[in-house]
Every structure is written in structure tokens, then in C-alpha cells.
């Protein structure tokens, strides 16, 4: 470990360390493990849908459990911890402080993830990652659903604790000689993400408690039989989880801002527009939650407000994309793996955004609602954009984590298989939705159009599976036996990135 301190230590010492690089390593490695676990389930889902009718899964409730685990795992155990891991590595270095503000709290926040993940993974609840009532409160079998609720509760608490830590580190522990408008944009991204988590998450935390007491039968917040309103849950849920989409995305934006100028060997085109667009995106994220609920009987005025609120994110996203395109313009671009992933991610971000504009238009939303269109749109975003940039950053941080270089050839195979696979799978899923295929089904009408499109989507998914196997092989082999990286400048860009020889006292 290069970003680590002093000398190699026994594993248990890293496990129980409170140093930010050690916690960051734990976050990053766990998130990658969960990425592969959730990805395996995606392969099962696509294999089932390769042909109509029950093929490899005969019981629909098992299929429900699989897609529930797939969603819950990849959102809460891959995207969030990976961003927190990279934040832990770089934020203290970027704000020039010896560690996170509260190192012990930092370790506690990490150590809440394994029990939360264990609860979620042991039970295999079948409620979907949204856990909509009434199913989740009157039918979903326990203790799986109860374990899911408690698992998410613990994971939510962990997010809140790490957010507090990031906010305090950035605002209070920043070096006094470093003005806030000079820190890398990644620091801004983590700051805004943390504020969004603090503002958005308590709502969901409350609604989890309400779900649980409803399941016990002592309350009836969402139980229609007791005078409750299931739609109220959707409001509470999406008040957290629409901002959450930006919480997933903004760290990726920050990473893109970190990678693009470096690999273009040129300063960022416009720092202030990037910061302003990030802040506005963070605010606007709270003005669009009910666009998930257009078909629940909202009034025309409510729908219009949320349509406009959703579309308001477009100018900010465009500001970022403009910055990302204007920065490399005229630069000497170095096409290493991180560059490929970032530009691939931006290309797919554009596609996903175009689909999002269709979704948010009220009349078109009614056509795409609850169809495979939504699945395609969402995956193009979280997989095609956010995860792509995360993979790029993983390759980028790899030499700093291990002191070794990954295999550029395998990384290239990983990227191209993934890029083509993502387009095949997720763009086809958009069209499947327009052909009327509902989401979350394990069987579909054996109509030739649906069959061929599902098979294209599955083949794309298998390409992505192969790509991820390449990634795993690359990570394992390069960590063990990779070529030693030239630490002054592992990517041959001609600048020093981080003060990687910093040796701060250990806690």
C-alpha cells in the first residue's frame, strides 16, 4: 500500500485501524466484493429472461428475491461504499489534514456496513429494493423483510456518520492556507454529497421504522386496512431516493473532474462553473422526487411542478458535460484506462439523460411507467455512467493502493466489452419497455419481438459479465504480481498527483 503509512503490517492491524487510508482500503475492497456479488445476480436474472417462460428459476418468489438483492446490494453496498472509500483516501490528502476529522467515528461508520450487509444478504427479502407497501407490510414473509429493514437502517446510519465526518473534515480541518475555492472539485463533490445525505436520509430512516411497526401491526401508517396510505410511503421513500440518485452520481462527477484535467494534461476549463453546477445540482435533486409517482394520481399542477423540477437538472448536467468536453479540447490526451472509462461514462450519461427527459414529460411517463424502459434508463445511469467512472477511478487509484500497475491490455478488454455490452443491454431494454414488457417479471409473452430483444439484452449482459471477470482477474493478478508502478508518475502524465509519501502519525 503506497497511500498507507510506514511499513507492511499484519492484516488484523489494518482491519482495526482508524487511519483514513486503512478505512478507505476496507471500504473499497468491500464495495468491490459486493459489486461482484450483485453482478452475479444480474447474470442469473438475464439468464432467466433469455427465453420466455420459467427456465432456470421455477418459483417467481425466488426471482423476486434475486432482483431485490441485486438492487439493494448494488445501490447500498457498491455505489455508496465505493464513493466513501475513495473519499477516505483522498479527502484528507486534498484538504491537507493528517486524517479524517473523527478517525474512530470513521472506522465505526465502516464497521456498520458488514452487519448491515449480513442482515440484508442472509434474509434475501422479496420486497424489491423499494419495499413498497402494501406488499412489504401485509404479505412479505419475515424475518427476511424485517432483516432487510434493519439492515438498511444500519447502512443508513453508517452513511450519516461518514457524511458528518466528511463535512467536518472538509469545512473545519482544511488547511488554513488553502481557500475553499482552490480545493479539487472532488472535495466539493464529497461535501455536497454529504450534505445531501444528511438532508435526505432521515426521511427514509423514519419510513423504515414506520414500515417495521406497520409489519408488527401496532401502527397503520401505510396499511390501507387500518386507514393508512401506501402512497405516503412512496413520497417519503422518493424524497430520500431521488436525491440519493444524485448522491450516487455527484461523487462520480467529482472523480471525472479529477481525472479529465490530469489525463488531458491541461488545467480544468472552468473551476467555478463546475462548483456552481454541483451546488445547484445538489439543491435541484430535492425538487424532483414525485416524478417517480406521476401515475399515482397526482394533480396536474403537482405533476407540472415536479416535471419542471426534474428538467431543471438538465442545465447543470450540461454545464458539467461542457466542462468535461472543453477541458481536453486542445490538450495532450493520455488514453490510459481511466480516460476510456470516463469518456465512455460521459457518452452513456448523455444517452441516459436523453432517456430521462422522455421519462419526465408527463404524458410520455405514462407510457414508460413500470416498463423495462425504466430499468434501461436507471441502469444506463448507475451502471453506464456512475459505475463506469468508478471503474475508471479504480484503475486510477490502483497504483496508489498497491504500488503496482494493472494490465492495460486487460483493462482495455474490460472497457470495450463493457461499453458494447452496456449499450446492447440497456438501450434494448428501453425499446423493450416501449413494446410493453413490464419490469420485475420472470416470464414474458412469447412474442418474437420480445424474445429477440430480451436475447440481445441478455447477450449484452453476458458480455458485461465476461468484462467483469476480466476486471476481477486483472485486479487479483496485478495486485499480486503486477509490474511495480513508477510512483512519481505512474500514468506518465508528467506531474505529481498526490503527496503519496506523506507519513502522518498513526492512531
Amino acid at each position, binding site marked *: 500500500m503506497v497511500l498507507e503509512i510506514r*511499513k507492511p503490517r499484519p492484516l488484523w492491524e489494518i482491519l482495526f485501524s482508524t487511519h483514513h487510508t486503512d478505512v478507505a482500503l476496507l471500504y473499497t475492497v468491500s464495495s468491490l466484493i459486493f459489486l461482484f456479488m450483485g453482478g452475479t445476480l444480474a447474470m442469473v436474472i438475464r439468464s432467466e429472461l433469455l427465453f420466455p417462460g420459467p427456465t432456470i428459476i421455477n418459483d417467481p418468489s425466488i426471482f423476486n428475491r434475486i432482483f431485490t438483492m441485486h438492487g439493494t446490494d448494488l445501490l447500498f453496498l457498491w455505489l455508496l461504499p465505493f464513493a466513501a472509500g475513495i473519499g477516505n483516501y483522498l479527502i484528507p490528502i486534498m484538504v491537507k489534514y493528517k486524517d479524517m476529522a473523527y478517525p474512530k467515528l470513521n472506522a465505526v461508520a465502516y464497521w456498520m456496513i458488514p452487519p448491515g450487509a449480513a442482515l440484508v444478504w442472509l434474509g434475501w427479502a*422479496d420486497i424489491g429494493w423499494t419495499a413498497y407497501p402494501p406488499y412489504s407490510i401485509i404479505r412479505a414473509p419475515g424475518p*427476511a423483510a424485517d432483516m432487510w429493514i434493519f439492515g438498511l437502517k444500519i447502512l443508513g446510519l453508517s452513511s450519516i456518520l461518514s457524511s458528518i465526518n466528511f463535512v467536518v473534515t472538509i469545512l473545519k480541518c482544511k488547511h488554513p492556507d488553502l481557500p475553499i475555492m482552490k480545493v479539487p472539485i472532488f472535495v466539493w463533490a464529497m461535501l455536497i454529497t454529504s450534505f445531501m445525505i444528511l438532508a435526505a436520509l432521515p426521511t427514509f430512516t423514519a419510513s423504515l421504522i414506520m414500515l417495521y411497526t406497520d409489519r408488527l*401491526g401496532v401502527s397503520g401508517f401505510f396499511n390501507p386496512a*387500518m386507514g*393508512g*396510505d401506501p402512497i405516503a410511503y412512496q413520497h417519503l421513500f422518493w424524497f430520500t431516493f431521488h436525491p440519493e440518485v444524485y448522491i450516487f452520481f455527484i461523487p462520480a462527477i467529482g472523480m471525472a473532474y479529477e481525472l479529465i484535467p490530469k489525463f488531458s494534461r491541461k488545467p480544468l476549463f472552468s473551476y467555478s462553473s463546475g462548483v456552481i453546477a454541483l451546488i445547484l445540482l445538489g439543491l435541484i435533486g430535492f425538487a424532483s422526487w414525485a416524478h417517480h409517482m406521476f401515475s399515482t394520481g397526482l394533480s396536474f399542477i403537482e405533476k407540472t411542478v415536479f416535471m419542471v423540477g426534474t428538467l431543471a437538472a438538465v442545465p447543470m448536467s450540461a454545464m458539467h458535460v461542457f466542462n468535461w468536453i472543453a477541458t481536453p479540447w486542445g490538450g495532450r490526451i493520455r488514453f490510459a484506462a481511466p480516460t476510456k472509462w470516463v469518456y465512455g461514462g460521459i457518452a452513456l450519461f448523455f444517452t441516459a439523460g436523453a432517456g430521462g427527459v422522455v421519462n419526465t414529460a408527463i404524458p410520455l411517463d405514462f407510457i414508460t411507467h413500470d416498463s423495462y424502459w425504466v430499468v434501461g434508463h436507471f441502469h444506463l445511469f448507475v451502471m453506464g455512467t456512475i459505475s463506469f467512472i468508478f471503474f475508471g477511478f479504480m484503475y486510477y487509484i490502483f497504483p496508489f493502493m498497491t504500488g503496482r500497475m494493472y494490465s492495460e491490455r486487460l483493462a482495455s478488454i474490460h472497457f470495450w466489452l463493457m461499453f458494447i455490452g452496456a449499450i446492447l443491454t440497456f438501450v434494448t431494454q428501453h425499446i423493450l419497455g416501449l413494446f410493453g414488457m413490464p419490469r420485475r417479471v420472470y416470464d414474458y409473452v412469447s412474442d418474437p419481438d420480445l424474445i429477440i430483444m430480451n436475447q440481445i439484452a441478455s447477450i449484452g449482459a453476458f458480455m458485461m459479465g465476461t468484462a467483469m471477470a476480466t476486471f476481477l482477474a486483472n485486479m*487479483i493478478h496485478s495486485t499480486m504480481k503486477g509490474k511495480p*508502478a513508477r510512483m512519481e508518475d505512474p500514468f506518465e502524465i508528467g506531474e505529481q498527483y498526490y503527496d503519496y509519501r506523506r507519513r502522518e502519525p498513526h492512531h
Partner: protein
Amino acid sequence: MTTGEESPIIRTSSRRFAKGLAVIVIIMAIGAGINLGFADFWHKFPPSNQLKIQEVKGGESVVSTGVTREFELKFVESADFRTLGFNAVTGEAEANPPIEVNVGDTITVKVENGGKMPHAFGVVSNPEDPNTIVFKAAFKSASDPIKSGEKGEVTFTPTKEGEYFYICTVPGHSLQGMQGKFIVKKAEGAAGGAVAPAKPTGMSHSFDFAFTESADFRTLGFNAPKGEPNSNPEIRVKAGDSVTINVINNGKMPHAFGIVSDPENPNAIVFNVKIKSADNPILKGQTGSVTFVADKPGHYFYICTVPGHPLQGMQGDFIVE
């Protein structure tokens, strides 16, 4: 800052990484062991709130007596809103008339809010707990009540004898007087004009039905989707004949079979003729069979008892002469 010579760059080693990988694999193996070892346990228990509801839901669907009864109830409030009642304020003679019915009767209760407060109607097993609704006999609820001056009606079939209460399900109103007795008795013999069972004729018939769906799943029917030539054949038998019905599910959706007195009410089963039910249906490709004696003349219907399916076409005439 120190220089490179003083603190050398530390690179990961194969051995160390393999150790870490081993730890991860062991943890995952233990997790998988716990998960699979208790595979049946994780999905064993329904939510606690269901235990209560299952208790009061009443029995299964019952043999319909064919008797239809109608009652009218009016929500009434005293001038100071302290005392409430049905038809008259509690304490007056005609307030809260007791209702007596038989198991299997089709009951229609017409309610009218003659007061100024919002109300809601329900038949419950415990007059102090509006959540103990029985026979699904409820009209509106405390969160979506009957407003002043509004009317409505609810139709249901009592499935279990006993002493129940009809109340206003708005919390507190039943304690203020809005409760009356609702007594359900066993249907004995030819109650309410029902005809005595016919003697067995010794004749027996056998009919085969296939649940069929159109390609777009919009139109359903027996033997063919509704509207096509062989769809939903009319069955005529003599009272007392023994009838055997064989069904097969040729569609993709789950179905269930029953003979009912009212095609829109899957609970109005007659002669106790049913094969499976909406909760535990006949799945794609499965078959079922039932034999019974049609001992009461009348115009009945054979339907798919999965809610909604009769309206999509899965109903045919079953006439006992």
C-alpha cells in the same frame, strides 16, 4: 515531508494479498452456510399484523342459500353530538335495530349519513375495535368516511354463525352509541323460501372445461375466449343429477373454478362446488375435478373465481331444472 530514501514505497505482495483473499472467501463461505442452513427459516413467518386479520376473517366461502336480504341504516346524531346511533339516537326505541340473518344469505346494507359528522359502516366481531371487520362487510373507513348526507351500500355474505356487531368504524363512535347487534344463525332447512333438496335421480353427467385466454390476455373464457363459437357452453341438468366437472388450465394465468349464484361474487358458491381458489389457484397446465349433486333448481353460473376473470368473460350459465 520525508524523502523516498527514508520511507521506501511499499508494494503489495502475493502472500499478503492471498491471505486477505482467503479471509474474504472464508467469511463468504460462512455466510452462505448460514444462509442455506436456515433456507426455510427466512421466509417462514407472515408479518405480525396478518395474524390478527386472519383470525377475524371468518370461515371459507359457504353454500349460498340464495336468500337476499336488505337492511337500511341511517347514521343519526343528537343535537349536542354526544350521543349517536343508527336510525335514532341510542336510548330511543327504534335505535340500533338488531339484525338477524342466516349463514349464506346475501346481505345488502344501505347506509345513509343523516348526521353532520363523517361516519363509516362495518360489521365487526368486537364493537370496540373497528379493525375486527368480518365478512369484508365494511363501507368506507375512518380515513375515507361517508360525509354528511352521502349514501352507500355494501353487499356481503356471512360465512360463520355467531354474534357480531354493526358499528360506525370511525374511532369512538361505537362507544357513543353507534353499535347494534348483528346475529348470524346457521341456515336450517328451507329457510327464507329456499326449495327443499331434490331427491337424487341417479343420472350422472360429466363436463370438461378448459380455461382459455386470448393472446393479449384481455378476453378470457371456458373452452375458447368469450365471443368465439365454443366459448362458455350453457349447461342444463335436472335437479338431483350427479355432475362431474373436469377442468384444465390451458392458459398462462392462474385460475380457479366455482359454481356461484352471482357471477360477480366469487364467494357466492353453491352446492359447495369449487376447485382450488384465488389464493391457491390452478396453475398453467394443471387439472382438477369435482363431483356433486345439483339438488336445487335454479339459474347458477360457473365462473373462474379469481377476481376479475368472470368480468373478462370466464362465466357461463349452469341451469338446474
